[in-house]
């Protein structure tokens, strides 16, 4: 396996998982700080999953020259990687249901990213890897969908706090 396209594809795949793991880990810390231990534990679990996926991509990359990419040189369709949880979608009262929905949102974007890479790959090795990774992401989506079903949906007023830490003036 060789070629710039393969290296670039793997550089993106590694960054995708590394950035996702870092963000989940930050969100876990945030939720710990805000005394939402249940969601913190879930975010930490997601971070661990992303780290394992990053390790597995690194194993695939053995023997391939993977180029260094600065964060802003990564070619995502959005400002951040497809599996990086958007900060603005978090809330200090969010529930495990919201956390899993967020993870599901990220995995769906991850799947769409690899499906798109497979569709437009010029290199046969890249196409094969992208298809495999898209299939893996589809499996993650399926597992998360099953997981979400086991979690009760929050009440509509889940974000109402009778003793809010940030009452306006």
């Amino acid at each position: 396996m060789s070629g710039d396209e393969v290296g670039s594809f793997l550089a993106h795949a590694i960054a995708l998982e590394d950035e996702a793991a870092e963000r989940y880990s930050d969100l876990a810390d945030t939720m710990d700080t805000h005394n939402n231990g249940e969601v913190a534990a879930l975010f930490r679990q997601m971070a661990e999953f992303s780290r394992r996926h990053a390790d597995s991509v690194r194993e695939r990359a053995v023997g391939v020259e993977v180029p260094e990419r600065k964060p802003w040189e990564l070619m995502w369709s959005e400002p951040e990687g497809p599996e990086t949880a958007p900060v603005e979608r978090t809330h200090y009262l969010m529930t495990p249901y919201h956390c899993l929905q967020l993870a599901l949102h990220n995995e769906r974007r991850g799947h769409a990213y690899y499906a798109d890479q497979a569709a437009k790959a010029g290199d046969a090795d890249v196409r094969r890897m992208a298809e495999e990774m898209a299939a893996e992401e589809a499996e993650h989506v399926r597992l998360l969908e099953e997981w979400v079903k086991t979690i009760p949906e929050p009440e509509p007023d889940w974000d109402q706090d009778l003793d809010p830490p940030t009452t306006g003036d």
Partner: protein
Amino acid sequence: MTAQPLTAKDYKSDTKPIWCPGCGDYSVLAAVTKALAELQLPKEKVAVVSGIGCSSRIPAYVAAYGFHGVHGRALAVASGVKLARPDLTVWAFGGDGDGLSIGGNHFLHSCRRNVDMTYVLMDNQVYGMTKGQASPTTEPDWCESKLTPKGPQVTPIRPLHLALACGANFVARGFSGDPNGLAKMIVEASKHPGFSFVQVLSPCVTFRAEQRNWKQLVHESEDAEEVASDVPEAMRRLAADDGFATGILYAGDRPVYQPMHPAVTELAAIERRFAS
């Protein structure tokens, strides 16, 4: 053995941020650590200075020298640090209240003086730490604070206009929703000689919940590819600015203010003077 390059994670301190979940400042912090990793600056060669406010907590979260200063005085402190220690890379941080109201005068003169440092103003158009009052960049009709029930009814300060008019040598606007792009912008700002100003649109999801939608409003400036190098051209571009265009607006070449007088008083002598 060759030393491993420092990563963004290496520039995070062990102190965990206490910002509200969803706050844009988390992503500014991510951009800052990514920028430091790109520059590979030794931690002991970086000074991160701030004033008071939510955003001003950032020195605690960066593994470098930090100074969490007095309200509105981040730039005065940062200027002093840079003039006394020109070998340090000095980055100052603050919010729109800290930097444009209480610290407004320091901002004007920092732009004018052109000391070689970078100022990142994390703008959420509200005083967040004091629980939601109108700031100098709040819209005149924002009525959510009991202090200004009919809105502040005052024209907001436009930070880029002000920086440009006062002589800042580098003027840019970034967005916390694009931490990678913001990291690049901070790198450029830091490398540019003189006073570099970066306004960052950083939503306050607690007191300005509608700012969660900034992601839909922010767009790259039409002129992003061609940075203005003269003030009239930059001003012309600002005339059409909607407040959400990101990119480097201006990069000038004014001489940097850095007196070459070496320190003549030893630290011990100063300490003796204070002790007496």
